[in-house]
């Protein structure tokens, strides 16, 4: 299990990973991220909403489940625990706390755990929870202490530690000041060991007053100006999902760089990957007999002497123009180096200059790093304000890591946006858009086709209008990944068949047809002749191939009549290619019906023999 990234690495040509990729999951460097869910299991959590809305407990379990499955996919090295407090039964590894129930100890997630959380959902879940745990007195102090032990007893190296408290009670101890004080002390001890405590407070009748107790329990916001405590309690599942999601991951920089505006004016910034293509993780090799993972070792040796080769006994080479050109390994690196890492401002351009199709890789996000250079945030903020105001972007030369060749990027300003609940939906900063070089653009020869008339366009407008919807970037799951994980889940749990997935990126054809009604036919009548059939595949295919062919120049041939005669005599006519033969037929004015090589050859022989 130690070699998380081993199978992704391609050591052979020594190429560095893609620039856009971050060293994700490199636990050797950073330790594992830990997340503890501390969930209130008091009776209040099980009260149903008015219109059959799910209970707070049920909502919490749904969120926990989605975090579980998401983590399995995106960050399976993370450690997660689920602890209930205010329970009747007690269960913890040290057996020293009452009213605390450790449902899942701090460890990696697996299929079983997802199932166990599932069991706690819905009506049945509430019953099961009542049976196994029950509700009774609350001691948040004990609960926090228990969590502290979880962190402490974990044998792995820990990275970022987070504790999320889910509750709908703003006074868990009913005003018992001794218990309150104990809990506060315990919380502060916990915070001192680097645990970030967050509150996910849920709706209750009469409102949730954070200031009564919880204000002194949770970690202060990263910055006093952030008004973290004024969040309204969560009412809806979606809100809770979003809030948990924003807090569940630690943001990490891909790089900390200087944004150089000019000689001596350096703003420190952090670069964050906010969208990274999630891929199926690579397969692991297992030993057939025991199903245990194996490690791979590779070594480089000399084929003649058989001795192992040291890095100094190896060089790099490329072959061009029949010549092998050899370089030292460090020369190969030196060639890639243009400058030290950093962003260098070239100038500004109006936003319209940023072309939609100039896209080569996903954007990254830029935010000031005040800790590196004091004053960065202020200058960054001024730059951001002015860029937004003037509707311009900053063009920069960007070297994101050592020995990376430069790329040009557009820094596109982005203002902060909050939703009604004062939760940040869009953070303030610059989006870094990578721009293509001349080599990255392909020359196209656009086919010439006629334009539509205003009537035709209007009809299409009606169609477009009927099919409007509000796009949200997180609305579509990747069916390929989902299916893969369902399959694994089924195999891991010995299920008969995997759960069905819903393919969200499939067009809802029936709905579309219903909404459009007669519009489609009306549009077709306007643009297509009666006998036109776009589905006529064979015709379409052939025509399309020809259309593609027009982009290229037809090869010209220079085969003289004499040469043909010579070839016929020598019997080497068959060595010519079909297009050449065809061309020759055309030149000599031979009409052929066949396209077979033999037919073409026969025709030529006939012609030249006469």
């Amino acid at each position, binding site marked *: 299990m130690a070699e998380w990234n081993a199978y992704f690495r391609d050591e052979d*040509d020594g190429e560095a990973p893609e620039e856009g990729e*971050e060293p994700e999951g490199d636990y050797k460097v950073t330790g594992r991220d830990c997340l503890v869910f501390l969930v209130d299991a008091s009776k209040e959590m099980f009260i149903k909403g008015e219109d059959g809305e799910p209970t707070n407990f049920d909502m919490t379990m749904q969120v926990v489940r989605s975090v579980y499955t998401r983590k399995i996919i995106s960050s399976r090295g993370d450690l997660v625990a689920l602890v209930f407090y205010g329970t009747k039964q007690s269960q913890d590894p040290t057996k020293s706390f009452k009213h605390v129930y450790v449902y899942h100890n701090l460890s990696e*997630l697996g299929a079983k755990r997802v199932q166990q959380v599932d069991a706690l959902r819905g009506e049945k879940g509430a019953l099961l929870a009542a049976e196994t745990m029950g509700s009774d007195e609350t001691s948040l102090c004990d609960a926090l202490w228990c969590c502290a032990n979880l962190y402490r007893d974990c044998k792995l190296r820990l990275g970022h530690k987070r504790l999320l408290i889910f509750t709908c009670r703003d006074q868990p101890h009913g005003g018992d000041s001794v218990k309150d004080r104990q809990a506060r002390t315990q919380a502060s001890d916990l915070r001192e060991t680097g645990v970030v405590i967050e509150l996910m407070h849920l709706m209750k009748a009469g409102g949730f007053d954070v200031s009564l107790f919880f204000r002194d329990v949770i970690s202060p916001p990263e*910055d006093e*100006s952030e008004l973290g405590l004024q969040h309204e309690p969560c009412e809806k599942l979606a809100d809770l999902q979003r809030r948990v999601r924003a807090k569940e991951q630690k943001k990490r920089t*891909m*790089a900390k760089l200087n944004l150089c505006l000019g000689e001596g004016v*350096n703003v420190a910034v952090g670069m964050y990957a906010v969208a990274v293509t999630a891929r199926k993780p690579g*397969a692991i*090799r*297992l030993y057939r007999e025991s199903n*245990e*993972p194996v490690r791979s070792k590779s070594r480089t040796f000399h084929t003649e002497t058989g001795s192992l080769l040291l890095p100094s006994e*190896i060089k*790099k080479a490329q072959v*061009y*123009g*029949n010549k092998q050109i050899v*370089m030292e390994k460090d020369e*190969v690196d030196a*060639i*890639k180096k*243009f400058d030290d890492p950093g962003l260098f401002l070239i100038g500004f351009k109006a936003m319209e*200059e940023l072309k939609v*199709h100039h*896209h*080569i890789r*996903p954007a990254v996000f830029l935010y000031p790093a005040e800790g*590196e250079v*004091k*004053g960065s945030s202020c*200058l*960054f*903020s*001024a730059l951001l304000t002015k860029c937004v105001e003037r509707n311009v972007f900053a*063009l920069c030369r960007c070297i994101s890591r050592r020995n990376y060749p430069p790329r040009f990027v557009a820094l596109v300003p982005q203002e902060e946006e909050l939703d009604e609940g004062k939760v*940040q939906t869009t*953070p303030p900063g610059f989006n870094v*858009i990578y*721009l*293509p*070089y001349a080599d990255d653009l392909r020359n196209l020869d*656009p*086919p010439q*086709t*006629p*334009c539509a008339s205003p009537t035709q366009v209007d009809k*299409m407008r009606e169609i477009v209008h009927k099919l409007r919807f509000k796009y949200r970037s997180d609305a579509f799951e*990747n*069916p390929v990944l989902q*299916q893969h994980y369902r*399959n*694994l889940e089924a*195999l891991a749990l010995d299920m008969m068949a995997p759960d069905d997935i819903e393919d969200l990126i499939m067009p809802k054809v029936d709905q579309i047809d219903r909404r459009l009604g007669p519009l489609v036919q009306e549009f077709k009548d306007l643009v297509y002749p009666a006998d036109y059939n776009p589905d006529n595949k064979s015709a*379409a295919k052939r025509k*399309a191939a020809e259309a593609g062919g*027009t982009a290229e120049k037809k*090869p010209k041939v*220079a085969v003289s009549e004499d040469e043909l005669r010579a070839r016929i005599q020598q019997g080497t006519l068959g060595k010519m*290619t079909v297009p050449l033969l065809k061309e020759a037929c055309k030149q000599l004015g031979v009409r052929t019906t066949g396209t077979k090589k033999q037919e073409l050859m026969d025709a030529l022989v006939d012609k030249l023999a006469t």
Partner: protein
Amino acid sequence: MSRSKSFHVLCMDVGLSMSNSAPGEDSPFELSKQVIQKFVQRQVFAEVKDELALVLFGTDSTRNPLAQDGQYQNITVHRNLMVPDFELLEEIENQVHPENQQADWLDALVVCMDLLQTGIKGKRYDQLNIYFLSDLSVEANSEELDVIVENLKQVDITLQFFLPFSAEEESVDEAGDAGRGGPGARGSGKGLSREQKTGLEMVKHIMLSLDEQDGLDQIYTLRNAIEGLCMFKRTERRPTAWPCQLTIGSALSIRIVGYKAVTEEKLKKTWLTVDALSHKRDHIKKETVYCLDDDNETEVQKDDLIQGFCYGSDIVPFSKVDQEQMKYKHDGKCFAVLGFTNQNLVPRHSFMGIQTIKIFAPGDDQHAGVALSALIRALDELKMVAIVRYAYNRQCNPQIGAAFPCIKMNYECLIYVQLPFMEDLRHFTYTSLNSKKFSPSDTQLQAVDSLIDSMMLVDKDEDGNLKDLFKVHHIPNPAFQRLYQCLHHRAVNPGTALPPIEPWLVAALDRPDVIKERCGVPLDEVKKVFPLKVMEKKKPLKTSAEIFGKDSEQPDAKKAKGDAAEEDEGEEYNLADISEGSVTSVGSVNPARDFRILIKQKTLPFQGACEQLTHRIEQLLGNKNTQYYMKSITCIQAFRELSVKLGKADLYNSYLQLLKGSITNRGLEVFWDLLVQGSISLIGQDEVEGSCVSKNEAAQFLVADEKNEEPVATMADDADDVDDLLDNM
């Protein structure tokens, strides 16, 4: 099937007059040589199968197929048509020199045409080109001119001229090309000899007869040609069509063709690993073995392996066959509309994937063209995009993406880009920048405003036309350019160090000069009103502790290591910082650390660093304060540790003995006790071989000597006093 290829003939004048140049300028010969070098280099690296010949004229000797009876003299076919290679580059570098004859340039042109006509017999060809480089200073025999033009037309040969001067009219030249042509392009008419003028007329005549409209565009100055060849080398790729149907619901479909429009071009070749001595690839073999994760690392055979996947902590064996059978399957190629949405809901930064695709209607299908045009225009008018499901084919995973309308002067299309899946997104929250602490003042905002003003890259010129000073998509990928430059250098000049990056490339990547000039003052203002302070970080200490941490006895080294693990990936950055050599001497803030770094980086010789360190220790000890004593102790520890490490005990030992001698004198008993407590003694022979101190002596140094020392010290004191007295007298 082999693709058809092009044939090129480079025809270069190496005659007497080509070496003439104004002082300080490259001669036309030098420029021409650069042009053909760049041209051949680009052919070699693009690895096209095009054939290329090199004809020189004005040569002392004559070697060409047409040379008979004193005709076609002083013309040499240096290399006949073949695929260019490094040998040719080497020959150009080493064998093409200015020579002393002159030759009729029209004769040379005829030789080139002949070469092409004989060379292409029986071959399929795409294009025939002649590139002609000359200063036209020899009067050519114009009798045959029309025959030549006829012949060029018949065989369909493209001709390009590269001259040391501009072919454009004087008046135009003054206004237009003068700036661009630079010093290499002398104005036409001015300074041209009579022969050159007639020659130029003939060139124009030829070019206009070949192409009435744009013929003159094919006459270049040498200087421009070099710039052009530098900048616009790119590997050509033929676009592949992707025919498909755009569907809206079940009833409406439109035939489309997609072409990849933008994608990051990668180098075609990767580095091979070769043996350092033989330079042979097959002398090296890489072998991978698999072993169990047990103490013996038991090897297992490849056949005994199966594949599995992680599902969280579970490892699930999952054979390839099962995987194939259970995986997500779909109907293959598709471009299906899910719905339409406002363009502003699909912001630029949400684009995923590594390419954009342009979608057209097939050129031969008018009806599809009209239908697609209706969609494009409707979307454009409504400022909307289509959200589509896109699958390249059955084997490829389907994507979700957006199709933007794009209406250009001469064509319309949809531009497709991939959008994210839920799994791809990370939701991070960041502290608001609207707090008082970070809010810029009006003066500060004003300064940034002026900076933006001065650095706008798109500007109006005198005629009110917009002019972009910095078009990224016109810059060639510098990584490729640099690699080719280095490969070329290594191939032609083996055994020498790699050259610096070419100046034109450096300039192309930098701020345009105009901007540099304009932004000077506003930049100074920004510098003035925004205080920026690089934070002193503790990290360098941590990292240095990491470097030496393993054998260091300092208790805080371990702690520092633990802390460092808490930090995010800033480490490399800081490591780079300290290795960048910010430490040049042993400072007073953290002398022990500075000393370690100096020794590590070898910026100072060992002895020099030691002298600096002992100097600091003496300074610290002058303060007689426990805190400073502790600091001194860490210095001495570091001194000892590195002396042992480097096997140089003498400096340390002699310093410590000296120090001991002065303890009582300077009243440093408390400090000495600290040394004794920390048992920091001399370095014995057991630790460093060359030490003059035996193990025993080292051990005794702190304990036994102490008592003996005292009387000696007092005696010395007395002696001093006596001396002083004597002196005073």
